């Protein structure tokens, strides 16, 4: 391959100038003439029957333009499982669920009107623990589950239970292999529900227009999915709905799917077509909008004497919360990757997505994987100790490698990258095998830990995207996409690829910010670290389409066949005769001969990509091909623990990801460091707390702590391997989610090294650590 000019280079992000000057406009910042502000009255109960709603005083307040309850709204919405109401109807299913929507001239009037609404509830017994929810005597969160629409053949709700989806993986004969294993381990783990915490809360503006049309601005990761789901929900032709996505202040999965848009839509209708703006308060971001679901795991592993895994069984019980419209897919992904990146000849996995009366779950960066790998990677360490083996050796012995198959029957090839190299690089980074330096104080101890990670994009088998490139009068290129860059830097990477492939200087490549379904071509959703891969491939194809048109016209201009035209530096010239040249600027809109005759026309290239070869998973065995590609990696950490306070400090953390090809080292670095710190949040601090009646106790930053600048590791190492991905643009794989996935597992393992204590519950906060240290002291 010719040397790359832009791809792989640390090009600065395209959007930075807007962001450092305050010019970047987010949905939060937008206003549309005539706009009203809407707020929600939300449920104070986890589960209750709505006896009566009195909105008369609210309606009478001057400046109030529309008041809606669930009663008039028969719609159901949802992505994979259509199980949500726009506003609660008849019952409320979680503390924080929207019950009444009010639109008014100002936000203050809308809030005042909310206080005038009287709702009588009859509290019901809430379902709070998903393990109890599986019992026959449990109340049902959705008694009408069998009537709900859902993605058929992919998800399997079980009517008259709380199970929204049950994903199975069956490979070999677990029972026999486990019974005859030489060494076995059974362990249980827990991850609490946590929040994405984008700094921009969810915001949307919806205006309904005459002729059953609607125009929408939203802080969304998925403009086309918003359009599609609204179109299905309200029975409108797709073309009648136009979705704009301006700058988005962070998403991390929480802005995929549909959120406040349907409520704003019905309020706009109810107020005679006024534009409605809804901005979630920070409290609503925590307890009304979805989160990462909690997980109870049970892991059983059997090995032979040499330490080879012969059997693994995992039972995952997901605390889906009140709705599972996206959560079912988390449960699915967690099953097909639920054994970790290991060779498991006999595997049995049950992943149950279970309704409870809590805030509901959705996709969150690396979804399903951080959760299950917390258990798997801790269990692997425990197992190594049972075998009296070094945990790194134990992993190396069992990691997937060429010639082996995954638990869903996929052949592992060199194109998958190298889990073993990831492990070795991680071990080396923290000098695994060399004891830590003595701690800084006599009452402090240090320890090291390692954990593996893997993830594939969890997406429908037909996921696709398209790219359009238009050439400008000056020979520059405008790239139109509708994947959203909410901070990952993907647009900058796409710009690099466009410049590379079109053979133009990078200053001349532009990706258009603010996607708009009226002009930007289709993309499924910006999730799952798949946009650079799929969008990158589509751009390569779109650029080739442009070059074909350029060569065609230039060939005619010089009276040579198109394949005699070379394109370089924004100029098309005749091969071997570079003086016969035309800059793209003279071809972009068509070429004009000296006598005025013109040929060609505006150059517009189009490229597309669709997932290839993916299959549904067999409902009984989970066998099939779920993954376009896998990304493997590892985390290694060294921690220091204060045994008097339980305080833990991360001294060093190494992240290894087999990226296939690093398209932009600077942006990749940003994803790694940001991911690690988000992973630290999940590992050390973050958890939702509920009281015994299911009320959400910590919907604010003082009670739900996310990492600050004071909480970052002393040293952060990033190691990106480049074992190319066949079919990836330049051999690249997705990397944006992975840097957070096994941070908890590695820290849990390091804590064992430091303290000799097996932690099984997240987060590993000071209190939990100290209590275990004290318990250990009691036991002597």
């Amino acid at each position, binding site marked *: 391959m010719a040397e790359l000019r832009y791809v792989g280079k640390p090009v*600065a992000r395209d959007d930075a100038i807007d962001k450092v000057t305050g010019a970047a406009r987010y949905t939060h910042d937008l206003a549309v003439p005539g706009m009203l502000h809407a707020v929600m009255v939300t449920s104070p109960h986890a589960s209750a029957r709505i006896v009566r709603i009195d909105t008369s005083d609210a309606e009478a307040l001057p400046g109030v333009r529309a008041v809606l309850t669930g009663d008039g709204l028969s719609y159901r919405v949802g992505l994979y499982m259509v199980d949500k109401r726009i506003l609660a109807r008849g019952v409320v299913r979680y503390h924080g669920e929207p019950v009444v929507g009010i639109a008014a001239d100002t936000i203050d009037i809308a809030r005042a009107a909310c206080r005038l609404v009287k709702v009588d509830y009859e509290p019901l017994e809430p379902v709070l623990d998903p393990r109890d929810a599986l019992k026959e005597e449990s109340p049902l969160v959705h008694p009408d589950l069998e009537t709900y629409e859902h993605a058929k053949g992919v998800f399997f709700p079980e009517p008259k239970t709380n199970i929204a989806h049950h994903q199975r993986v069956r490979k070999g004969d677990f029972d026999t292999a486990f019974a005859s294993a030489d060494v076995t381990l059974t362990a249980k783990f827990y991850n609490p529900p946590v929040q994405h915490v984008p700094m*921009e*809360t969810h915001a949307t503006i919806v205006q309904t227009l005459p002729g059953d049309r609607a125009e929408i601005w939203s802080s969304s990761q998925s403009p086309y999915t918003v359009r599609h789901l609204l179109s299905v929900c309200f029975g409108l032709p797709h073309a009648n709905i136009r979705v704009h996505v301006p700058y988005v202040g*962070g998403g991390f999965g929480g802005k995929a799917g549909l959120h406040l848009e349907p409520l704003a839509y019905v309020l706009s209708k109810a107020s005679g077509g006024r534009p409605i703006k809804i901005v979630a308060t920070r409290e609503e971001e925590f307890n009304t909008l979805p989160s990462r679901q909690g997980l109870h795991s049970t892991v059983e592993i059997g090995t032979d004497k040499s330490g080879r895994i012969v059997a693994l069984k995992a039972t995952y019980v997901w605390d889906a919360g009140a709705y599972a419209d996206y959560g079912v897919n988390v449960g699915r992904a967690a099953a097909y990757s639920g054994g970790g990146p290991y060779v498991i000849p006999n595997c049995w996995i049950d992943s149950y997505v279970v309704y409870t009366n809590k805030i509901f779950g959705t996709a969150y960066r690396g979804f399903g994987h951080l959760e299950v790998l917390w258990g798997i990677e801790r269990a692997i360490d425990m197992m190594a100790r049972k075998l009296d083996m070094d945990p790194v050796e134990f992993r190396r012995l069992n990691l997937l490698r060429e010639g082996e198959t995954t638990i869903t029957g996929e052949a592992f090839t060199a194109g998958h990258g190298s889990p073993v190299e990831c492990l070795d690089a991680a071990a080396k980074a923290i000098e695994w095998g060399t004891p830590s330096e003595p701690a800084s104080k006599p009452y402090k101890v240090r320890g090291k830990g390692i954990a593996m990670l893997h993830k594939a994009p969890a997406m429908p088998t037909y996921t696709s995207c398209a790219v359009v490139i238009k050439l400008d009068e000056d020979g520059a290129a405008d790239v139109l996409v509708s994947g959203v860059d909410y901070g990952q830097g993907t647009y900058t990477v796409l710009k690099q690829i466009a410049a590379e492939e079109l053979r133009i200087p990078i200053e001349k490549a532009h990706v258009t910010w603010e996607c708009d379904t009226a002009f930007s071509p289709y993309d499924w959703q910006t999730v799952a670290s798949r946009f650079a891969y799929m969008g990158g491939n589509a751009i390569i194809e779109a650029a080739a389409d442009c070059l074909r048109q350029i060569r065609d016209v230039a060939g005619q201009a010089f009276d040579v066949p198109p394949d005699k035209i070379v394109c370089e530096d924004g100029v098309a010239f005749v091969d071997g005769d570079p003086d016969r040249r035309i800059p793209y600027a003279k071809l972009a809109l068509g070429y004009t001969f000296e006598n005025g005759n013109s040929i060609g026309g505006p150059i517009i290239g189009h490229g597309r990509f669709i997932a290839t070869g993916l299959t549904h998973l067999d409902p009984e065995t989970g066998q099939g091909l779920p993954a376009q590609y896998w990304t493997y990696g590892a985390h290694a950490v060294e921690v220091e623990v204060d045994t008097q306070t339980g305080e833990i400090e991360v001294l060093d953390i190494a992240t290894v990801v087999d990226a296939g090809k690093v398209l932009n080292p600077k942006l990749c670095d940003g994803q790694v460091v940001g991911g690690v710190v988000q992973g630290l949040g999940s590992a050390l601090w973050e958890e939702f707390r509920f009281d015994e009646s299911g009320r959400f106790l910590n919907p604010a930053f003082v009670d739900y702590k996310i990492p*600050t600048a004071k909480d*970052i590791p002393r040293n952060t190492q990033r190691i990106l391997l480049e074992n190319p991905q066949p079919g990836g643009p330049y051999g690249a794989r997705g990397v944006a989610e992975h840097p957070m996935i096994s941070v908890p597992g590695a820290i849990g393992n390091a804590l064992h090294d430091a303290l000799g204590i097996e932690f099984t519950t997240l987060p590993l906060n000071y209190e939990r650590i100290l209590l275990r240290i004290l318990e250990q002291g009691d036991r002597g």
Partner: protein
Amino acid sequence: MTHEIVLTVNGQTERATVPASMTLLELLREPLHLTGTKEGCGIGECGACTVLLDGAAVTACLVLAVEADGCDVQTIEGEANDGQLSTLQQAFIDAGAAQCGFCTPGMILSARALLDRSPNPTDEEIVEAIAGNLCRCTGYEAIIAAVRRAADRIGGEGSDG
């Protein structure tokens, strides 16, 4: 009840009639249309709304508009000079310190307050200055590096510009 106030915002004199309950953040974002200042929580816990009030970094959601009467306010829109990015802004770009960018205006103003009072800060001082500004994207490392870089450059040039 409303109040007449006069204040300087980014060097411009602004007059406004504001309700007693209006915050400085609301005043900036709505009547003054300076939407570069962000709201991440509205209750003083995230730092997204940080602006300079008489040179000190404050969370504008916790300051009443009437309290800013007679004061000098700088927002992110006042950080560049005549379209010329400040050294601090350029350092944020060069260090890759903005991802989604929602925390960025507040971060820059917290850093601006620090550099104005302590042009050669230690890393601890930098961390302390931005510890009240939450960022969910970057992991802070690039932000700390950006402030360090700006301080070094300003030190080298003797002034910011």
